């Protein structure tokens, strides 16, 4: 059985519990183990763009180091955690200065040089499990459902660092939707910003932006949206007219695998 270290992140313990619960259930059904890191800390929430900012990189490094010591790859579900952890890992690999400072600060038994591999859950499905294998495990195909994948801004960008999918014309979630037996709807706004934290400062603008995404997806025939990001989920639910249901991708995955938790049933 494939084993991965798992970093849930704080939102997945609170508002985004469904993303977490369904992700774990689906992993079990697909035959890989997510072992939650003991005593994990916040990923840092926002990737520090200042190169000399070390402290906010440390918690990501701790998680990565724990995965290295466990000899497994590090999996995240939340777009933001994935973004921060993978980019910090890249910094450690590329930037000698950051690597030295981080190791000086943490003083680990074995210095960390980026040995661990940070993966998003979707990457595990695509590259480790394989969508063909997912398809075979689907117990209740979502036949006839037209689903729009909503990527948002963080999941795939910057593409050279995240090396995940083409951020302008992605296909990973569409391929997943196909594997679940549903029909993906490609719409232009799928990789645009959901409004993000603008909702705090300028809720009107955030509403306009989120509604534009929903309208565009509806115009191309989507019946619901899926996302991997708790903040996108918030904006697409709270800042729109609610005409399009929004789910975490793990919810529909669990549902198709026949292991859905209570959230998906409610939906």
């Amino acid at each position, binding site marked *: 059985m494939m084993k991965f270290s798992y970093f849930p992140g704080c939102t997945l313990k609170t508002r985004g519990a469904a993303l977490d619960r369904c992700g774990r259930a689906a992993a079990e059904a697909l035959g890989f183990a997510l072992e939650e890191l003991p005593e994990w800390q916040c990923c840092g929430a926002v990737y520090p763009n200042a190169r000399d900012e070390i402290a906010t990189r440390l918690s990501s490094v701790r998680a990565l180091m724990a995965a290295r010591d466990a000899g497994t790859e590090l999996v995240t579900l939340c777009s933001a955690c994935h973004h921060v952890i993978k980019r910090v890992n890249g910094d450690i690999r590329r930037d000698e200065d950051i690597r030295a400072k981080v190791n000086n600060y943490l003083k680990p038994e074995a210095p960390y040089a980026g040995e661990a591999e940070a993966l998003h859950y979707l990457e595990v499905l695509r590259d480790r499990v394989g969508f063909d294998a997912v398809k075979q495990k689907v117990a209740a195909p979502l036949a006839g459902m037209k689903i729009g994948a909503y990527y948002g801004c963080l999941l795939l960008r910057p593409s050279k660092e995240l090396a995940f999918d*083409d951020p*302008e*014309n992605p296909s990973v979630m569409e391929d997943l939707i196909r594997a679940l037996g549903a029909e993906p709807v*490609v*719409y*232009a*706004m799928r990789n*645009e910003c959901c409004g993000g934290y603008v909702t705090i400062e300028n809720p009107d603008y955030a509403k306009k932006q989120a509604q534009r995404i929903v*309208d*565009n997806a509806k*115009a*191309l025939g989507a019946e619901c949206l899926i996302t991997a990001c708790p903040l996108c989920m918030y904006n697409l639910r709270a800042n729109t007219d609610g005409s399009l249901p929004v789910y975490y991708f793990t919810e529909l995955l669990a549902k198709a695998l026949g292991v859905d938790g209570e959230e998906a049933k409610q939906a």
Partner: protein
Amino acid sequence: MQRIGVFVCWCGSNIAATVDVEAVSQALAKEPGVVFSTNYQYMCSQTGQDMIQSKIHEYNLSAVVICSCSPRMHEATFRRTCEKAGLNPYMVEIANIREQCSWIHKDRAEATEKAVILGRAAIAKVQLNAPLTAGTSPVTKRALVIGGGIAGIQTALDIADAGFEVDIVEKEPTIGGKMTQIDKTFPTLDCAACILTPKMVDCAQNEKITIYAYSEVEAVSGFVGSFRVKIRRKARYVKEDVCTGCGLCTEKCPQKKVPNAFNLGLDTRRAIYIPFAQAVPKVATIDADYCTMLRTGKCGVCSKVCEAGAIDYKQKDEVIEREYGAIVAATGYNPISLAQFDEFAYSQSPDVVSSLEFERLMNAAGPTGGTLLRPSDGTHPKTIVFVQCVGSRCDGAEKGKPYCSKICCMYTAKHAMLCREKYPDTDVYVFYIDVRTPGKNFDEFYRRAVEEYGVHYIKGMVGKVVPENGKLKVRASDLLDGRQLHIDADMVVLAAAIEPDKSARPLATMLTASMDTNDFFTEAHPKLRPVESPTAGIFLSGACQGPKDIPETVAQAGAAASKVIGLLSKDQLTCNPCVAAPNEMMCNGCSSCEKVCPYGAITYVDKEFRGPNRTTLIRRVAQVNPAVCQGCGACTVACPSGAMDLKGFSNRQIMAEVDAICL
């Protein structure tokens, strides 16, 4: 022991800057058998060659080693030089101290040492060289042109004009290729059909040209001068020699909903069709995927209306075999799939079209009769955005092409200009990375689009196209202004990169012709032999060798034809004498060599040998046909008893080289 002369070339500074040529010639002078050693600035020059010849006489040389560039460059030159001085040309060895030494090293001492070692290996080999005599093989005086676009047509016409027979194999039902779909041509804006269709008719009427349309090359064997080619003539379900091309069947066929490939699916046609009015040959073809009769056995309308009785539902593919002296690849190009560039919403809105689709929308014989209308609602677009470099000049290996597609800048300028001329009330934007217009009258043409026709050229790329309420919201950046632009467009036209036709790769395998990483055919020399493949007898015409516009394609097609004519005008070709030869005393008849030979050059015979005590033995031994053998050496490696050897590259010679390098 040979009397060897060593000639070290400076190649100007190409070699001399990195390799101490004087030291090399002095070091090699001490090698066994070397009776003369020198160096000179340009060994390939007339003076250099004269020197080699005079030294051959002066020192009575029996073998020559030239330390210079790659043998691919000048081996033939130096062999000729020595032959003129009375030496067997195969007594010449080249030590490549340029491509494999001076060009790739920086350290002078190390490069010099390596040059000496390479020279020593060549000397060791030439010690064991034996004079070889080339045989001859006959030339079949007929050429095959694969692909019937403007490239193939021009090549065929030029070859036929010189009096040789030419066959054109075209996979589509008609010849003409991409140019038939184009409306106007840059930079003169003359109509593509008007200049192309007379050439198509010329092909059909030329006695020397045979057109195999709706056919594909299936297998190629043989070698330069005598290729054997199997051609699959796909079933049209219409007798080509009986059909008069009246077109009645294409009007009466009840199956009307077939996407019209000629118009890139922008409209529909019938299941039996003639691609366009000027098709050559002008005969109908049944599309087996859509024909009700072929699918269900019920219909037969076309057969009933055909007065000539040309319909034959039972027609089968036919494979014919022909012999050719030369083969020309003219397989052309296609625009890339836009599936990977959906940020421009190609799959999301019918009003986002490719440039070739736009050509059809502007063409009088196209789906809209030449009136520019939006595919979605049939209205006139008022704002049109052209996006250049879609998939061209991409940096990533996973998406798009690294090269410039070369033709897009000019055809986009043409499209923009035609839009403004026909519909002066339209706003036309062109987004570009660079405008590249190096060609006769090209830049003038582009400037006319900007200055006289008022096309808005904006340096920058479109980031996203969002279809919204019937409009296409175009988001782009203006790099010169440093601004974000939002344009509400009615139509977006994508200048998709071009790539070699998918049939080129399998064809290259059949022809053993080499290709680059982008599947363009490789030329024998990028500057000096641009229309020949490195494989003898294979020539390249048009965009299968690299992106080209029509004038360039026609020029290259003519050049390829002249090379073919040069080949076909010979009665005999000199064969490569470096072929495999078995030592019959060692051969045990195991067939290993026969199995690995890619050219079918090896057969087995039962031969009589003298046994002990005046008896005779019959033994099965290998025989090589020297006219078919290409000297690849596969058999020499496969032979378990070491009986097979390659003349000029014998195992002893190779081992002597290895010893000279390693010991």
